[in-house]
């Protein structure tokens, strides 16, 4: 018995001796560097992660929820004055933390992933051709540049961390508490990372040439966007913040502006002849073709205008743009609709509308009575085709349906003309006398004098008690998929491609940079005809009125063109920030809407323009030009200095 015990003990000990030897075998259940960096498949997987982390404001972005969030009910256009949304009641900064976007930790994770890739790949370079290695490094630098860009446009100067930081157990962590660099240093980091990408990426990405991964020109296009942002900050920013070592964390000397604008101009010029404006269905004379062309631009994968896109795939990566934004009468089974309702202020920017001398839409006749129309589309008969492709106007056709938008039926007499329902500028509710309205989509038809029945409100609104309708009198058209069956208009079900960078923006970047350089008297290395030529190129494609003289292409004209062309693409938000005019446009502002009414007596429609019936006031806080650094980031790294005013 005792013998057995000894034997057992001996066996156990012997097993123990050999067992310890095996501990230096790498764990089989953890993916190691050679697994990732040793094969093209591994690198592909790493790239997939980098690109999914790439901070771009796509279908899944809203200032409220940040990136990669599915539920977009406070959409970006409802913060910029492009549109109103029932869920957005005023100006807004971005929300970070809690269940919103972890902007700090998230972006620094991406920067870490880029740094790790850049540091590690060279050790495995022998497995690949030099061209492959250069291209992949170029992509990592591209993603890192985009991530620094995302940080600097929100916060100003942020810590620059270009190598992986490692914690040594037992050390104090002072070396990990990297302080903020100056804002200029971060913009220059963005520029130099993009320059590396431009120099190392091929003309066409060898892994995916469809614009979903970067190439040389993608990097150049984003360089034009970033440098234009930097130049605008240098020129227009008024907020400054220094640390104790005189690093300017917020703002840059105005003298830097010209240098950045020149970089933006030169980068945009690199794309000359490589991409082109989409004109497949366009005709110089046919307004309908121009409309269809602008609609197709957002869904044609063969478009030569697409520079950089984000693709989606069911069920791994999806969005719900149509579900949230279709007009009410085309509502999908989830029950959402009409989150983006363009304002009259936005619609009035376009050409081809009857206007008063002050630029507002003309809805009254010479005697001060409402003009009457047989059809709600009559007032828009000559509207610029790009407007129709961007906004669903009341009565226009979408998915084969007449999109019916009507505020109510006016039952008063039309003899001698109908006087305005409210005094000009009034912010009061509409009077209840002589007006039949509907509070929800469940309507009771009104009997017209000729005996016909008519619902008080249109099928897409406006409903007074329930704002799931076209609360501004308009609904958004851009990006909506006309071929998506209503049963498929669901959240988390759509795979329409997001175009983050298209050639029209690059042209407009170039025009704006040139106009800015001209205003600074720096015309040495630019073509001073560019702003005029480019605005007319864009307008001609849009079917808008052309500028007549080169002197007309001022900075304001170029900006306005940009706001029309890139509307609802989540670009205007950043433009208003970098021009530092958000606080001027949203200064106790109530946006304007256009309400179509049907006169039962006249048997015709009339339009009333007024301020938002909800009286939602937009006031942009100047502090928001530099967002608040999340408190959690400062608690972890007390070297971080908070931005002014928070």
């Amino acid at each position, binding site marked *: 018995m005792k013998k057995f015990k000894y034997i057992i003990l001996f066996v156990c000990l012997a097993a123990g001796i050999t067992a310890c030897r095996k501990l230096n075998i790498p764990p089989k259940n953890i993916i190691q560097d050679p697994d990732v960096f040793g094969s093209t498949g591994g690198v592909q997987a790493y790239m997939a992660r980098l690109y999914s982390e790439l901070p771009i404001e796509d279908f899944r972005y809203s200032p409220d929820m940040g990136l990669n969030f599915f539920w977009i009910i406070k959409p970006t256009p409802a913060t910029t004055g492009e549109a109103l949304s029932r869920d957005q009641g005023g100006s807004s900064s971005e929300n970070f933390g809690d269940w919103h976007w972890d902007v700090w930790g998230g972006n620094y994770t991406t920067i870490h992933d880029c740094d790790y890739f850049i540091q590690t790949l060279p050790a495995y370079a022998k497995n690949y051709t030099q061209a492959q290695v250069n291209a992949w490094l170029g992509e990592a630098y591209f993603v890192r540049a985009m991530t620094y860009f995302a940080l600097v446009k929100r916060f100003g100067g942020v810590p620059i961390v270009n190598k992986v930081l490692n914690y040594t157990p037992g050390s104090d962590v002072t070396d990990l508490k990297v302080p903020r660099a100056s804002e200029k240093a971060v913009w220059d980091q963005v520029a130099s990372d993009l320059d590396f990408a431009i120099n190392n990426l091929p003309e066409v990405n060898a892994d995916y040439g469809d614009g979903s991964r970067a190439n040389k020109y993608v990097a150049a296009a984003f360089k034009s966007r970033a440098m234009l942002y930097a130049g605008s900050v240098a020129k227009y920013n*008024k907020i400054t913040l*220094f640390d104790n070592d005189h690093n300017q964390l917020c703002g840059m000397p105005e003298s830097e502006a010209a240098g950045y604008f020149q970089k933006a101009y030169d980068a945009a010029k690199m794309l000359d002849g490589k991409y082109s404006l989409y004109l497949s269905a366009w005709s110089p004379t046919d307004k309908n073709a121009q409309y269809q062309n602008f609609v197709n631009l957002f869904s044609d994968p063969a478009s030569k205008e697409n520079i950089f896109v984000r693709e989606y795939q069911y069920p791994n990566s999806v969005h719900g743009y149509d579900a949230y934004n279709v007009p009410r009468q085309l509502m999908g089974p989830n029950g959402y609709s009409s989150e983006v309702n363009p304002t009259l202020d936005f619609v009035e920017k376009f050409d081809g509308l009857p206007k008063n001398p002050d630029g507002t839409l003309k809805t009254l006749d010479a005697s001060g009575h409402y003009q009457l129309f047989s059809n709600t589309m009559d007032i828009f008969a000559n509207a610029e085709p790009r407007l129709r492709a961007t906004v669903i106007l009341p009565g226009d056709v979408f998915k084969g349906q007449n999109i019916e938008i009507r505020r109510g039926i006016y039952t008063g007499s039309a003899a001698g003309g109908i006087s305005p329902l409210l005094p000009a500028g009034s912010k009061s509710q509409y009077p209840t006398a002589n007006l039949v309205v509907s509070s929800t989509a469940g309507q009771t038809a009104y009997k017209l004098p000729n005996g016909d029945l008519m619902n008080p409100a249109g099928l897409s609104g406006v409903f007074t008690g329930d704002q799931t309708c076209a609360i501004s009198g308009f609904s958004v058209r851009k990006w909506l998929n006309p071929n998506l069956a209503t049963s498929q208009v669901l959240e988390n079900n759509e795979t329409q491609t997001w175009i983050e960078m298209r050639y029209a923006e690059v042209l407009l970047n170039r025009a704006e940079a040139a106009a800015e350089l001209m205003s600074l008297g720096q015309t040495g290395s630019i073509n001073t005809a560019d702003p005029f030529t480019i605005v007319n190129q864009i307008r001609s494609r849009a079917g808008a009125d052309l500028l007549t003289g080169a002197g007309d292409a001022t900075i304001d004209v170029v900006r306005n063109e940009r706001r029309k062309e890139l509307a609802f693409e989540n670009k205007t938000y950043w433009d208003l920030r970098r021009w530092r005019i958000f606080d001027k446009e949203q*200064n*106790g502002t109530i946006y304007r809407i256009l309400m179509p009414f049907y006169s039962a007596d006249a048997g015709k429609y009339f339009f009333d323009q007024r301020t938002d019936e909800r009286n939602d006031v937009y006031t942009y806080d100047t502090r928001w030009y530099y967002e608040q650094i999340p408190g959690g980031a400062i608690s972890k790294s007390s070297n971080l200095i908070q931005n002014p*005013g928070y």
Partner: protein
Amino acid sequence: MKKIFYYAALLMAVGVGSSCNKTDNYAAPSSTITGSTVDEGTGQTVQTEIGGGGTRVKLLETSYSANPVPIYFQSKQDGTFNNTKVFPATYKVSVEGPFVPLVQTDNTGTVVSDSSQTIVLKDQATLKFKVQPFLRVEWVGKPVVNADKSVTVQVKVTRGTSNPAYQLDVTNINLYVSNTQYDGQNNYDPRYSTLTSYSGSNGTALLGQTITITTTGGALPLQDVYFRVGARINAGLNQYNYSTPVSVTF
């Protein structure tokens, strides 16, 4: 053997009882910082708005660190402040708001003047900061109720500083209407308030003049209504200087 077992059990019981007994032994902050932000020209407190867009007090706890993370608390609307939950320590205190900054830096970040006050806080400290407001907004007479139940007010806006860096154009002069005295750009009734933006030097031309402003939107509701006029220049964080709130009872 049994004895040892009992001792061990007793020891463990004591351990269990005392281990969880560690309360936060640091007394709650109970010192007070109180005081006011005063216009050095008129001796009046500088009116501001409640919330993040108004005057606030900045505390730097220099006895904790040479480069501490600042602590802020908000001033009241009338320009006084009071915080009764502060730890006793040495603080460098300043105020930030719609007036010439107490800590001024040049365009390279060098501090050129610093009127912060350093206090060794024990129980209570009262501070008075003399500042130069960007603008002074003063009533001229009382609000007048018109026949149509709208209200007309008169104010005078003047500069509160001769500092050349802050002689900027006046961009806004707004009459705010509210049903509470906490009236300002972040709390007003848009139906009746009259907001005016000025471009170029149009607003500046009104400095020193009696400005007449009438509420918009016709008759005011027949209840207590408060009026306040705010004006600003495009400096710093674009904050407003305000008149005192006045009320009209119909």
